[in-house]
């Protein structure tokens, strides 16, 4: 049934938001992290990660389905109670906050190195955060609609990039096919699972999706799009740049877009890709900012969480300024602190919630 716009988002907008929040990781420094572990088989890692998160995600979704009209944080509170709930939610807030800050720093470092060498990092940080704040302030509806508008353009430009890069591809570069060996591949995939963490964090907005039956479908659609996109781009990186050269390429996506051209005359198609990459990145951080504010607001139980956007923006800017340079930001902060710490949360939190829920008694009539 057609409803007037009621502050909720439809399935299309929801899928677009999730896709935007994750897929653009192929264009920042995430590939560098993964190629270090996965070598020539890095393109399999998204598939393996997808397999890993399937079960926890299903558990979480079934819990959300049982506790109707509750988002992730409200669910945590109602299952684990006031104190434990607060601790878990607060940890999630911190994860979201740090993740946003470090990813933002990643982005700014790329911008700084490639396009704005003379602009101070803090200026770039501020300008991007301000624009993300302006976008996030328009609310979830606007975020979803904008993503849905931009998604076809981003996908089309990605397909164009793949098509153009096909000429540079050398399929033999993917051998040895198992890279570092299967066991190593499975292990490092597990450790980097928080690349897909937004899928979990996004369940905060479960009550805001118009049709909760479609939430399942939406999640899997977006998972499908993300995994396909990641596998394709990692395949492209490895077959164009080869291993171990890929480790020396600081920014695979940007380098690839510089690499390709349409014939001799139009040699500068990167104009197009850059524009879309910028747009995508801004959307992505607007979503992160919004999610962080939402999680924090639910944690401390504030209704009007759009007021929190501004202070959180400030916190994100200051956090993003902590790493001294991009290597520190990526290798130490992102890899050692965040990724290695958070994978377990995304795997075990849903299981933990499910077990607690089970112990409390499923047939409990209190649950509505």
């Amino acid at each position, binding site marked *: 049934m*057609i409803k007037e716009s009621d502050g909720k988002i439809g399935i299309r907008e929801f899928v677009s938001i999730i896709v935007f929040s994750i897929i653009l990781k192929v264009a920042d420094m995430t590939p560098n992290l993964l190629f270090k572990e996965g070598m020539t088989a890095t393109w399999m890692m998204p598939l393996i990660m997808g397999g890993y998160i399937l079960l926890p995600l299903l558990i979480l979704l079934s819990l959300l389905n049982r506790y109707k009209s509750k988002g992730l944080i409200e669910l945590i509170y109602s299952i684990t109670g006031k104190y434990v709930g607060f601790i878990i939610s607060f940890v999630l807030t911190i994860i979201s906050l740090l993740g946003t800050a470090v990813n933002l720093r990643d982005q700014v470092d790329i911008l700084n190195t490639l396009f704005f060498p003379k602009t101070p990092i803090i200026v770039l940080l501020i300008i991007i955060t301000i624009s993300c704040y302006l976008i996030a302030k328009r609310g979830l509806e606007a975020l979803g609609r904008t993503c849905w508008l931009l998604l076809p353009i981003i996908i089309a430009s990605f397909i164009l990039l793949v098509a153009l890069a096909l000429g540079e591809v050398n399929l033999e570069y993917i051998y040895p096919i198992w890279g570092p060996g299967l066991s190593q591949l499975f292990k490092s995939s597990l450790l980097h699972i928080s690349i897909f963490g937004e899928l979990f964090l996004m369940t905060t907005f479960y009550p805001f999706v118009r049709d909760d039956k479609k939430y399942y479908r939406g999640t899997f659609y977006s998972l499908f799009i993300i995994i396909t996109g990641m596998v394709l781009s990692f395949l492209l990186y490895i077959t164009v740049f080869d291993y171990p050269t890929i480790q020396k390429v600081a920014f695979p996506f940007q380098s690839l877009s510089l690499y390709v051209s349409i014939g001799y005359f139009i040699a500068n198609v990167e104009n197009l890709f850059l524009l879309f990459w910028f747009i995508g990145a801004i959307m992505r951080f607007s979503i992160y900012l919004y999610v962080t504010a939402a999680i924090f607001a639910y944690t401390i139980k504030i209704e009007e969480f759009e007021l929190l956007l501004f202070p959180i923006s400030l916190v994100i800017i200051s956090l993003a300024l902590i790493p001294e340079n991009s290597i520190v930001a990526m290798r130490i902060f992102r890899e050692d602190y965040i990724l290695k710490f958070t994978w377990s949360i995304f795997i075990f939190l849903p299981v933990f919630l499910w077990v607690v829920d089970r112990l409390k008694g499923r047939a409990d009539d209190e649950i509505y």
Partner: protein
Amino acid sequence: MKSIVSFFKKIRDVNNKSTDRRNKKELISSKLAVNLNRIKEIFVYPKNQDFKIRKISIKSISRVGVILYLNGMVDSKKVEEHIINPLQEEPCNDEKLTNIDLINKVINVSIADEIDTFQEIKKKILDGRTVLLVDGSRKAIYMDTVGFSYRNVEKPTAETVVKGPKESFSESTQVNRSLIRKQLRNEKLITEIMSVGESSPLDISIMYIDDIASPDLVKKIKKRVQDIKADVVQNIAILEQHLEERPYSLVPTVLYTERPDRVAAFLQEGHVVLVDNSPAALVLPVTFWSFFQTAEDMYQRWAYGNFIRLIRLLALLTTLLAPAAYIAMTNFHENLLPTDLLLAITATRENVPFPVIIEVLLMEISFELIREAGIRIPNTIGPTIGIVGALLIGQAAVDANVISPIIVIIIALNGLSSFAIPNTSLNYMIRIMKFIFSFSAYLFGYLGISISLTVTLSYLASIKSFDVPFLSPLSPYYPSSGDTIIRPPVWKQWLRPLNIYPQDKQRKEKVEGDDSND
């Protein structure tokens, strides 16, 4: 001190009195002389020479009456032939005849009815009607004798088409409504009349199709019209500004159109239309696509219509982005330009003393200047502007090394594109925004453009016109015929756009057909 207090008290009293008078209904008495005096007082007679009082003796009831009208507002021939003549001449000598009988038997005017307050008399006379007061009656009769002068129906000036109807609205509600009804012969097409403005009310016809337009929407629009607190609303262009939800926003949320055929098309989709004595109608609610599309897109065949739409989309993007992209490329991203092109640009800029942003602003502002001058200039000296403009912008400025030739190309292209944006409001919006885009490109190159673009898009996505999301049915998605950037063939447009919440969702049954050409 006391005097001040009493002064304010007086003001308050006066205010109260005037509002009292406005709200109170004054009934007509049965004495003609009393009524006449009150009316003379209202219309400042005999000072006001346009107000006419004509005493007549009504033969059919053997009583005295008075005919009142405003000179110039009524068709005096009509008054003579159809009101004065029959009243004076038809003998019936039946004193029991009432006003109703007078209307039914004597007066030969198509619209006539009884009224019983002075407020109504005032309103009717101001609207161009003739009012008859009969001695001994507590009711007056008004008769429709409107005779304003107005333009003939002419060709549209702002929304011209090559193929399709070439009529535009004129300065008469009657004519405008008839133009709409001519295009849309639907028994459910409803006209409701509301008046706006307190001291000189403006009658607005609200038109919609009863079984299509959403009742909530109609109610909301009527309420909005009712809530307008203005002394005078002169015409529909002012009304547009009273109705819109975001007075400071660059984005228009009401469509102002001069084409009856477009109005008919909108009515069929479930929109509501406001008409008055203005050479245009207002359509609400609207979406971005209403501003972007023209009537001709539909009248031309599928391929041609879509072709002109794509050209227009290109024009829109060029207007918005061309100067900004030029600034970004020359200031920040030289390496992204092909080397030959970069050399060509640098060579032409060698002698120019200004930075690119100054150059662009200089040219943009002079172009806007020519544009504005072109509209304001008296017709007789119009052609001069072209010559002066071409000389000033083109040859002289380049020869004097003030600007580089390449900027002339960019601005000319930009100007040309801006003329292809069909709607005046959208045109202004894009033209103002191009300055914002140029400036952000000057600050941060491509990043600046991307930021402006994304913020603009998210703003457009978030706003609503009377509860209808501005970019719907594209985003958020609603089932529709897909008539947004491009359109499907006419026979495939069997679904009404559901973002307007129509009661009846289908125009016709879905046509089962294939796309093959045989």
